[in-house]
C-alpha cells in the first residue's frame, strides 16, 4: 500500500491547480501559472503577493527528477539570487521524502550539490574552518538577496529577502554560511562533474579556461592531480639516474706519465702505452696537471691510437694559470689541471700520443709580474703529469637528463600556478592584486 506523494491545491489567485510535492514541509509556494506567492503552512491557502505574469523558463523545469550520488531527487523550488543585483546565481531546491532536501547551485560556470550541515564547523585559525576533519579557507563574504522565486520551499521565502553570506573553500567543495538574526545555516556544496549534472538534463558549461571566465572558487586545479603523479615519477626517474651512475660511472685503474716542456719552444710529441680498453665501448678519462705553473698556458693535443687499426680518437686539453696585481689588489685565474674525456672508444690496445707546448703570457702593462721586453733567456722547464683511465662519468649527461625530466614538471607547475592565480583573484581574501581586479569590473 502506498500513500499519495503529491497534494494538489488550487491557487486562490488564478484558480490553477498547483501540485505540492513536499506537503507538510512546504511553507511557501509560488504558483507556476501566475507567479503569485502563496502561504501553504496551513490547510487554508492564503495569497501573500498576487501577480499575473508567466513563470520564467528554467534550465531544470520544476518537477524534473534526476539521480545524483545514488539518490533520486526532484527539483521543487527555484531561486534567482544575487549580491545586490551583481554576480547572479541560481539555486534549485531538491527533495526526496526519504532523504530530505538538497541544493543544486550554479552561476553558469559549473554546478554544485549542496547539503545543509547539522553540525557547526570548527574554528581552526583566522579564516580557516574545518568540517569532518577537512579544512576550508575563507574566500568570499557578502550579502545575498533573492531576486526571483518559483516553486515550493520549506521556509517563508520572498523576493528581496536578504542574508549575510560567507564562503569557505577547499578543492572540490565550498562551505557556505547564510545567516540573519534568527537563523544561521551552513551548507556543504560539492562540485558536480559535467557527467553528473546531465542527470537533470542540463548541458554542462565549459570548464576553465575555455569558459573565458575565472574558475569557480572551489574548482580543483585540473593540473593538481597530475602534478602529484608527475612529481612522483620525476623522483623515481631521479633515483634511477643515480643508480645508473653508481653502476656505470666507475673509472678503471689509471696509468700515469710525465712530460717536460720548455715554455716558448716548439710542441713536443710523446707516445705512451700500451693502454688497454676492456669494454666494447667506453669513455676514456685523461687528466693533465702542470704543478706550480704561473702566467703560462699549456696546449695539449691528445690522440688515442688503436695499435691494430690505427683509428685515432682525439681531444684537446688546456692548463693555464695567471696572476698579477692591479688597483684592486692581487688577482689570479685559470687552473693548473684539466680533465678531458673521450666518448665511445671501442675495446682495444692503444697508444696515447700527446702533443704539448707551453707558452708564456706576455702580460700587459706594468701590472704583470714579469718584465716582458727582451725576455729570451733560458726558461725553467715545466713538468706535465698525465693520467689516463678507461671509463668515467659525464656529469653533463646527468644534468641534461635532469633538465629533460624537470621541464614537463615545470610546465605543469606553471599551468597550475596560473589556474590558482585566476581562481584566487576572485577572492575577497586574495593577496595584493585582487583590489585592482574588482575596480576593473
Amino acid at each position, binding site marked *: 500500500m502506498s500513500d499519495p506523494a503529491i497534494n494538489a491545491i488550487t491557487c486562490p489567485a488564478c484558480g490553477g491547480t498547483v501540485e505540492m510535492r513536499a506537503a507538510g*514541509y512546504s*511553507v511557501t509556494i509560488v504558483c507556476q501559472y501566475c507567479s503569485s506567492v502563496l502561504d501553504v503552512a496551513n490547510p487554508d491557502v492564503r495569497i501573500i503577493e498576487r501577480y499575473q505574469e508567466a513563470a520564467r523558463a528554467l534550465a531544470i523545469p520544476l518537477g524534473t527528477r534526476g539521480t545524483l550520488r545514488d539518490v533520486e531527487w526532484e527539483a521543487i523550488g527555484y531561486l534567482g539570487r544575487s549580491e545586490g543585483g551583481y554576480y547572479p546565481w541560481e539555486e534549485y531546491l531538491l527533495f526526496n*521524502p*526519504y532523504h*530530505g532536501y538538497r541544493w543544486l547551485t550554479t552561476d553558469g560556470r559549473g554546478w554544485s550539490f549542496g547539503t545543509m550541515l*547539522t553540525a557547526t564547523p570548527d574554528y581552526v585559525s583566522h579564516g580557516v574552518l574545518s568540517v569532518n576533519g577537512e579544512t576550508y579557507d575563507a574566500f568570499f563574504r557578502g550579502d545575498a538577496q533573492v531576486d526571483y522565486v518559483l516553486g515550493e520551499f520549506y521556509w517563508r521565502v520572498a523576493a528581496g529577502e536578504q542574508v549575510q553570506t560567507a564562503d569557505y573553500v577547499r578543492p572540490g567543495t565550498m562551505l557556505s554560511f547564510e545567516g540573519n538574526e*534568527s537563523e*544561521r545555516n551552513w551548507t556543504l556544496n560539492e562540485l558536480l562533474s559535467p557527467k553528473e549534472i546531465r542527470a537533470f538534463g542540463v548541458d554542462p558549461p565549459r570548464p576553465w579556461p575555455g569558459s573565458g571566465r575565472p574558475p569557480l572558487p572551489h574548482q580543483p586545479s585540473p593540473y593538481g592531480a597530475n602534478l602529484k603523479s608527475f612529481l612522483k615519477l620525476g623522483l623515481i626517474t631521479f633515483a634511477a639516474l643515480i643508480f645508473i651512475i653508481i653502476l656505470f660511472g666507475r673509472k678503471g685503474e689509471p696509468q700515469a706519465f710525465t712530460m717536460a716542456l720548455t715554455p716558448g719552444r716548439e710542441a713536443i710529441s710523446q707516445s705512451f702505452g700500451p693502454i688497454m680498453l676492456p669494454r666494447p665501448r667506453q669513455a676514456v678519462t685523461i687528466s693533465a696537471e702542470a704543478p706550480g705553473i704561473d702566467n703560462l698556458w699549456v696546449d695539449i693535443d691528445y690522440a688515442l691510437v688503436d695499435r691494430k687499426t690505427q683509428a685515432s680518437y682525439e681531444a684537446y686539453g688546456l692548463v693555464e694559470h695567471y696572476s698579477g696585481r692591479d688597483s684592486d689588489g692581487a688577482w689570479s685565474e685559470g687552473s693548473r689541471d684539466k680533465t678531458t674525456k673521450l666518448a665511445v672508444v671501442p675495446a682495444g690496445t692503444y697508444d696515447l700520443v700527446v702533443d704539448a707546448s707551453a707558452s708564456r703570457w706576455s702580460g700587459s702593462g706594468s701590472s704583470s709580474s714579469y718584465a716582458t721586453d727582451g725576455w729570451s733567456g733560458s726558461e725553467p722547464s715545466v713538468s706535465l703529469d698525465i693520467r689516463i683511465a678507461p671509463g668515467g662519468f659525464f656529469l653533463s649527461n646527468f644534468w641534461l637528463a635532469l633538465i629533460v625530466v624537470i621541464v614537463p614538471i615545470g610546465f605543469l607547475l606553471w599551468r597550475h600556478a596560473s589556474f590558482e592565480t585566476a581562481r584566487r583573484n576572485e577572492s575577497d581574501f586574495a593577496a595584493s592584486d585582487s583590489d585592482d581586479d574588482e575596480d576593473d569590473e
Partner: protein
Amino acid sequence: MLSVNCPNCGAEVVFRSPALPVKVCDYCRTAVTRIDDGVRAAGEMAVLPFDVSPIRIGTRGRFDGQGFDVIGRVRWGWSDGAWNEWLLLFADGRDAWLGEAMGQFMLLFEKPLEGSLARVVSRLAKGGDATIGDKAMIDGIDYQVADIKDAVCIACEGELPFTAPAGWKVKSVDFRSNTGACASFQHDGTEASLYTGRYVTLAELHPQDLRALDGWTIPSFAA
C-alpha cells in the same frame, strides 16, 4: 501491554508502554487516558493534516544497538512552518523523540532539569529568554542556541506521555553543536523540559516499515 476498549467508540485501544498515560484512539481520535481504575476519555484530538513524512506509526528501527518502534506523534506548527515529533519506544522500555523538520532528523532523550544547569537553560526554565548564538554546556558538550520558536500543537496520534490538545502553546529552543549533538528545550508556561541527543539520518536508524509514497522508491537501507 494493556488492551482496553475506547470509552467513546468501543474500538480496541492498546497501550504498549506502561509508562505512557495517553493513547489517541485510531478510529475516533479520542484521547484515552489511564487512571487508577481503568481509562477515561479526555476529549477529541484534531485531524493531522496531509504530509509526505517517510515515518509512520509502526515504523521500526535501531539506534545505538537498541531496537525501537514508532508509537506516537505530535505535530507542531509555528508562524513559518511545522514539524513532526515522533515518539519512539525502545525495547528496554525507554522512550525518545525523533524530531523531523526541514527533512532533517534529531533523536532526543528527555533529560531531567536538575542539578547545575547551563546559565541559558536555567534562565529559560525560569521563563526567561535566550538569543541565537547563546552558549550552553550540557553534559560536557558545548552547544549554541540555533533556533527559537513559539510553537502551537496542531494535532497528535498514537501513544503519548501527555495529552497534546490542538492550540497548546510551547516555547521551543533548539541547540546545536560542532559534533552533530543537539538539544531541545520546551516550556509551555507551567512546565519546562530538556531533551538531548544528536542529529541522525534515516539510513543510520536502519528503518523498517517506512511509509510508502507514490512514485518514490523506498531506499535500499530500509528494504
